[in-house]
């Protein structure tokens, strides 16, 4: 029953692990590797066209295709640059669905008399490229890697991880619900990313952090300009300013110490704090749907007509009653107080105890999406204050 952190996972095909550039410095970011290149708006369009024409699936923030509904951008498979919505607010859902689909077939089965034949699903996936991922969404993937590699390796997750090249979009910071800074990230973090785009006038400053990222640039070399030294210096300066502004914005939001929080949460399982928080939560689990790090799932069998069917895994969430319900009718988490406590526990105590880091990237989606105004940043601030007292 050791709670010591396990060995870190090693996703295949990953190059250098991108810690946030100059994360410790906290001030202006430095270029990640090599000379900074520039991708003009026009060439971004060409890049999209070339990738799509090459047959690689491309994911980017894009608007809902149906007119008259929605409005905010989401990560989608796109087929043209016209769909790109880099300038939109934070995508509504995180990136996790491209690695852990909301419903995925684990295998299919066919009954042949008393016999059963199993049809396996592939664990290798065609390459996909993500352009314009928010740093909090990308970093989440590497955090979740740890549980997916804990003991037995989840090949479906890692198959998709290995097949994907991700270029972040340096984040302008959404609003006061953002708190990536408080959980050790930054709006320009490149953790788990293969490269990053930073908006500069007329286009993007492009940096690569892994061989995979460099390979993508190499494959479309003509579109990336290094320009003369004067222009390059200008761009670097603009990018540095952009990042510094974003960092300053998010740093002002939430001042907490996650180690202190971990200790308090671990020691206060039965604290009244939880019973005060539970009633507001209506158990809708919208928070878990949009969360980049929530990865819990259900496994179900679904017959398809007579004699065959599929076993699927679907997103699931600790916020529902049936999540832990025993067949006997007994439920270890019988009310919303204990379910909300579980959510906070898992993210800020259990996961750090196991894997040495919190299961949260501070994207703030849970606070934005909660119909009842439950606010994780506020909850963390309260716990931090209790822990300090």
């Amino acid at each position: 029953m050791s709670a010591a952190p396990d060995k870190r996972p090693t996703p295949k095909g990953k190059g250098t692990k991108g810690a946030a550039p100059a994360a410790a410095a906290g001030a202006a970011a430095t270029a990640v590797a090599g000379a900074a290149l520039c991708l003009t708006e026009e060439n971004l369009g060409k890049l999209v066209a070339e990738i799509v024409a090459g047959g690689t699936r491309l994911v980017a923030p894009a608007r809902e295709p149906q007119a008259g509904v929605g409005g905010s951008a989401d990560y989608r498979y796109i087929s043209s640059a016209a769909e790109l919505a880099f300038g939109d607010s934070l995508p509504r859902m995180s990136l996790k669905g491209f690695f852990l689909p909301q419903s995925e077939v684990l295998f299919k089965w066919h009954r042949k008399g008393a016999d059963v034949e199993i049809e396996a699903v592939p664990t290798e996936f065609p390459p996909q490229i993500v352009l314009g991922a928010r740093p909090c969404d990308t970093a989440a993937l590497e955090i979740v890697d740890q549980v997916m590699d804990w003991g037995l390796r989840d090949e479906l997750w890692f198959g998709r991880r290995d097949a994907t090249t991700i270029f972040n979009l340096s984040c302008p910071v959404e609003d006061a619900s953002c708190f990536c800074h408080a959980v050790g990230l930054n709006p320009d973090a490149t953790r788990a990313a293969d490269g990053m785009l930073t908006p500069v006038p007329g286009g993007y400053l492009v940096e690569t952090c892994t061989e995979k990222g460099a390979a993508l640039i190499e494959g479309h070399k003509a579109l990336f300009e290094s320009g003369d030294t004067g222009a390059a210096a200008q761009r670097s300066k603009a990018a540095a300013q952009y990042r510094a502004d974003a960092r300053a914005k998010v740093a002002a939001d939430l001042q907490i110490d996650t180690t202190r929080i971990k200790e308090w949460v671990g020691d206060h399982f039965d604290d009244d704090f939880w019973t005060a928080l539970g009633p507001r939560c209506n158990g809708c689990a919208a928070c878990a749907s949009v969360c980049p790090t929530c990865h819990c799932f259900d496994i179900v069998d679904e017959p398809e007509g007579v004699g065959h069917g599929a076993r699927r895994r679907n997103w699931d969430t600790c916020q529902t009653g049936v999540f832990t319900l025993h067949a006997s009718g007994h439920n270890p988490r019988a009310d919303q107080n204990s379910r909300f406590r579980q959510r906070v526990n898992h993210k800020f105590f259990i996961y750090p105890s196991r894997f040495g880091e919190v299961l949260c990237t501070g994207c703030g989606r849970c606070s934005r999406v909660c119909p009842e105004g439950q606010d994780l940043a506020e909850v963390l601030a309260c716990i931090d204050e209790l822990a300090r007292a």
Partner: protein
Amino acid sequence: MKELRDLARKLLADGDAGVVIGWEEGRRGARPAFITTPDDADKLIFDARCVHNLANYLNPRKPQVKALGKPAVVVKGCDAKAVAGLLREAQLTRDRVILIGVRCGGVVQTPEMPAELTEATVATRCYGCDVREPKLVDHLVGDAQPEPPVTAALDRRIAELDALSPQERWQFWTGQLAKCTRCHACRQACPLCHCERCITDKTQPQWIESSSHLRGNFAWHLTRAQHLAGRCVGCGECERACPVGIPLSLINRKLQLVVKDLFDYTVTDDPEVPAPIGAYAVDDRQEFIE
């Protein structure tokens, strides 16, 4: 506001209520508040951002709320309709709850918006509101409010959809329901979804597949809508809770119109009026039956 706070304080101080459920200021606008001590009564607010239907917290399957004692709930007229629904369906007895009605001049679409009512900001449910002064109450507070701006956006959108061919509507809804992750936030946010165990959580037999592929999603959304036909109060909480932005109000409103057309029934805050599904008339329309 003072009237509301004083009343809440008194109810708590006198021990009439164990908890006053109203609204408070949160970091992202108004949000539900659970006031358990008289001192906290000053946290209560009420304005056009108080969109939440607090009747949801009267669901008998919420032990964490029950544990706080007898509730006094602040209700707008539309919320009172949901309370009436719970009373009508024997989920609640009238003496187990104190209802504090507030006179309402309409609410905005989300609690984060500024409390300014314009045609662009007003919630679609305020269109045709007939309970701006709730009747199903123990206390009524607040001043009379002006009429909210009118928006028939929802009905217009329904008319647009109705004008399409079934194939085009199918295209529209498959596009929308493909987003559904089956988190069931719509159900949890609904004050009338109070079943002990929801049909979609049942496995023997498994009528509704729990996978979030379109087949499971269609079964779920058809069932959710059908089970709320004639019961839905149109508060729109399901749509607001939906993390992926499915326009559920279109379906709910459509069925309100259907129920009105077929059975001449409009959802009411009178718990004595039976709901249309579960009742019948011998001469109900049946032109669709061969």
